[in-house]
Every structure is written in structure tokens, then in C-alpha cells.
């Protein structure tokens, strides 16, 4: 239902390889990325080659509403190779909702997405990226963020429906006074998931947080690496938490911090465990069933319960 609503209000809607909707608004240039590559020299500077498919969103003026994108797979065996680019001009505050999904559970599609996001000086972007796939789908989603001086990014990625294979990766470069907060939440069931997040604190007074929330259930395997490198005198923190819901599932979490700058401060914390029986009992003592109690704890763990 949420996806349908999102499709209706989408600025960009792509199903399989066909663009169904392209709706610009005042102050925003929206193009298919192959067209944008031909049309704008600036875009050619950011992309190595002409994309096959995807979107370009260039936010030039302050916008009142979030920009919505929706990319879906609706036919069997589709292989999407998306190349998206988003530019937010200096001083602009923007918000984006991005949904990628399969409309049926067993389409066995491949969704390969590379997104480059450039936040110019003092620009700000809140990006919420939701994935909902079927059990036969394979997904590789990679993002690259460039934050110019004073830019702010809050990025959250969630994939809580089971699929065959998931690879999530991002690289963010933060210049002076830039600030980034990354949240990646994954619930894996009978699947293989790899997470690879890297943040480079290039400029002084930059600060970044990587927050990973991983739930592994029913023979799932989640391998995660998260790294913050401080070249400038910045502050960074990695926070990785994993929940195992079954004995046949695996979570591996490797947080890494690196600096040669004595003005930098980098910290990390990581933990993996099972759901506390005390918490389940407590919620059951309020009338919830065991399943309802676990669901509430899990949604809380993934940060969903705060949204609701």
C-alpha cells in the first residue's frame, strides 16, 4: 500500500526498464540519467560513462516537498543497471524518499544500482531509501556521497524483507565542517547480505556516524564492514548492533577506524546478541503474544517503532 502511494506521488517512476513518470517541479531538474549525461557538462564531470538507465535530480532552489523516486521490477528475470545522480546546490535543504521494490515475490530479478550524490557547500539532504524485494531477487546497491564544506547528510537505508542476495555499499567523503549520519538497517532471512560502508573525514571539523542494525534469521548470513578514515581533524563514530533470531544464522561485524591526524577523534562500538527474554516477558505481561512482543522489539531495533 505504501509503495502504491509512493508510486502515485513519485517524481520519478520506473518499472522494469521503462520510465512511467517524470515529474519535475520548480527549481528541480529531473531527467533520465542517459539524457542528462548528453545534456549537461557538469553531469559528465561526475560520471565516467554514459548511463544505461536511471535518473538525474538536480535541486537548484529550495523545495517545499520531498522528492520521491520509485523503481520497481514487475517482470521475471529483469536485470536493472541503474546509474543515478543527485546534486543539491549550495545552501539548499532537501528531502528525498527513494523506494525500490519487486511487485511480486518470485520474479528473480537483479537490481544493480549506483547512485552518486553531491551536496554543495552548506547544502543539506535527508535521504530515506527503502528496499522491498522478493525471495528470488539479487540486489547490489552502491552509493557515493561527496559532501562539500558545511554540507549535511542524513541517510537511512532499510531492507527488511527477505531476498536472495543483498550487497549494500557506500563511500562518503566529507570536507570541512561537513556532517553525515548513515543508518543501515537489514533484516535477513535465508539470504546472504554484505554491507560495506566507508566514510572519509577529509576536512577539519567534519563529523560522521555510521550506524548499522542487522537482524539475521533462518539460515541468513550477514557480513558487515564499516570504516571511518580521518585525514582531517574530524570526529567519527561507528555503532554496529546485531540480533540473531535463530541458531543457524550468522552475523559478522568488523568496524574499523583509522587516522594519522592527532586532532581526530574516532570511536566504535559493536555488539551481537539475541533478543532479551526479560524484554519479551515484560511485553507479554502487557498482553502481547510472544510473536507480537518479538516483532515490537525487532521493529524498535530497526528504528521503525519510533517512526510509527
Amino acid at each position, binding site marked *: 500500500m505504501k509503495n502504491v502511494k509512493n508510486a502515485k506521488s513519485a517524481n520519478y517512476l520506473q518499472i522494469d526498464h521503462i520510465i512511467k513518470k517524470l515529474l519535475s517541479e520548480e527549481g528541480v531538474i529531473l531527467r533520465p540519467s542517459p539524457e542528462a549525461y548528453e545534456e549537461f557538462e557538469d553531469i559528465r564531470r561526475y560520471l565516467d560513462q554514459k548511463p544505461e538507465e536511471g535518473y538525474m535530480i538536480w535541486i537548484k532552489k529550495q523545495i517545499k516537498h520531498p522528492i520521491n523516486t520509485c523503481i520497481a521490477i514487475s517482470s521475471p528475470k529483469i536485470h536493472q543497471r541503474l546509474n543515478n545522480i543527485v546534486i543539491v546546490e549550495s545552501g539548499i535543504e532537501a528531502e528525498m524518499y527513494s523506494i525500490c521494490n519487486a511487485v511480486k515475490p518470485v520474479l528473480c530479478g537483479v537490481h544493480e544500482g549506483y547512485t552518486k550524490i553531491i551536496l554543495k557547500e552548506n547544502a543539506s539532504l535527508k535521504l530515506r531509501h527503502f528496499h522491498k524485494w522478493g525471495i528470488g531477487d539479487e540486489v547490489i546497491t552502491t552509493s557515493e556521497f561527496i559532501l562539500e564544506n558545511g554540507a549535511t547528510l542524513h541517510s537511512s537505508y532499510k531492507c527488511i524483507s527477505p531476498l536472495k542476495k543483498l550487497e549494500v555499499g557506500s563511500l562518503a567523503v566529507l570536507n570541512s565542517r561537513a556532517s553525515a549520519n548513515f543508518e543501515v538497517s537489514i533484516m535477513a532471512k535465508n539470504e546472504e547480505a554484505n554491507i560495506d560502508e566507508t566514510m572519509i573525514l577529509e576536512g577539519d571539523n567534519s563529523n560522521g556516524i555510521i550506524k548499522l542494525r542487522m537482524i539475521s534469521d533462518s539460515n541468513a548470513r550477514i557480513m558487515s564492514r564499516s570504516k571511518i578514515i580521518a585525514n582531517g581533524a574530524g570526529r567519527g563514530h561507528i555503532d554496529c548492533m546485531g540480533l540473531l533470531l535463530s541458531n543457524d544464522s550468522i552475523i559478522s561485524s568488523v568496524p574499523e577506524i583509522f587516522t594519522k591526524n592527532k586532532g581526530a577523534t574516532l570511536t566504535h562500538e559493536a555488539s551481537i546478541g539475541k533478543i532479551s527474554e526479560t524484554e519479551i516477558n*515484560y511485553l*507479554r*505481561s*502487557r498482553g502481547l503474544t*510472544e510473536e507480537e512482543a518479538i516483532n*515490537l*522489539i525487532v521493529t*524498535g531495533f530497526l528504528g521503525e*517503532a*519510533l517512526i510509527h
Partner: protein
Amino acid sequence: MSEMLDIRSLSVKVNGKLILKNINLKIKEGEIHALLGPNASGKSSLAYAIMGLTDYEIANGEILFKGTNITHLPIEERVKLGIALAFQNPPAIKNVKLSLLLKRISKEKPATLPSFLKELSVTSSFLEREINVGFSGGEKKISELLQILCLKPQFVILDEIDSGLDIINLNKLMKIIQERLIDNGVSILAITHRGDILQFLNPDLTHVMLNGEIVCSARDWRKPWETIVRCGYEKCEECKERELLTD
């Protein structure tokens, strides 16, 4: 008055260790009972066993609630029957707002919640906090009572509802317990260490628990209380004045 809770010869084990021994306790409809005892004597364990928490294995005996045998009933089924427990140390549930839980569990009309908040002198922003995350001792008690009120129970166990509360908030809580629970005929088992709570509740029966056993049950709470204040719990078992009520 008909029987609300009837515990018969109950023995309970946790991790194979016997922690409650041959407990007999009858609480009638609308009755207030107090349970005293030193730390680790088994008071909270009795509360958890009545509630059916999973670590508490019934080694012997049975628990009846309004005539129904609930000895092996799941926790949530006991809640449906009208049993509620205000925890002494409730766990934190990260990232879940108190408002969300109250909405999920409430048998009260949504309009009732603001009046509860007003009576407890808490703002609606309190509801937007994560359950028990960073709550002070007093805030935990307010949150517990709020949840209990939303459940509209018929029998409530208050496990040290007074701990961590200043006198002003304690009086507020007691006023609400009186008006919302006692005046509505709700039966109460209050676990406490404080005389002023006993004075306020004026229980129908006061029990003393030592080493997992109820060693004294008195109609006048002052008798065991004065013995405890005067001589300590260790003298309870030897106390000449102790009563053991069988019915």
C-alpha cells in the same frame, strides 16, 4: 466476597533451584494484601510466578484465578483474565515509544489517557520517550502505573511501587491507586518495605516472607511491621505474636 486469587501449596524453581516453598495465599475480590520480607526472600519471584514469567518453573501446587486454573497458562492469557504486574525494575525497550505500547495494549478509551497524565503530573512528551530508556526511578513507576491503568485489570501486583519516588509523587501515585484501582474493587497484592505505604493501603492481610516461605499472615499490619522495625526480619520467625491464617 468471592475468591480472586487462590494459590495452593505452590513451590517454584528457577534454574533448578527451589526459590518458593509451599506458598498458600488467598486474595478475595476487592481485598488488599501486603507482602513484606527482606531482600531476596522471594517476594518478586512470587509476583513473577503469578504472572507466569518463563523462567519460573512450577515444581508443585497450583494457582487459581477466579476459579480458573492458570498454573500453566501463558503470560498474555493471564493478562486477558485481568492480572497485571507493576514491575520493580522494568527493562528498557529501546526505540519503542511508550505511546506506541500504550496504544497497543490499552483497553481504555483513548480519551482517558490525558486524564491519567494530568493526574500523574506528566506531560504528553513523556509518552514520546523510549520505554524505560533513561527513566529515573520515579518515572519508571509512573510508566508502570500508566500501563497498568490502561490494562483495566481486576487484580494488580504492585512490586515496590514506592521505591525511587519522592513523597510528593508517592502521594500522587497512592491517590491514583486509591481512586482508579481500590475504589473500583480491584484486588491488590502490594510488595513493599515501607510503613507509610502500609498505613496508606491499610491492607486486609499482611504477609511476611522469609527464604521463599510465607511465615506470617496478620490481619493487623502493625503487628508484623512493629516486630520487623523493632527486631528485624530475623526475629520474624521466632516472633511469639505471629499469626498464620489458614483461611
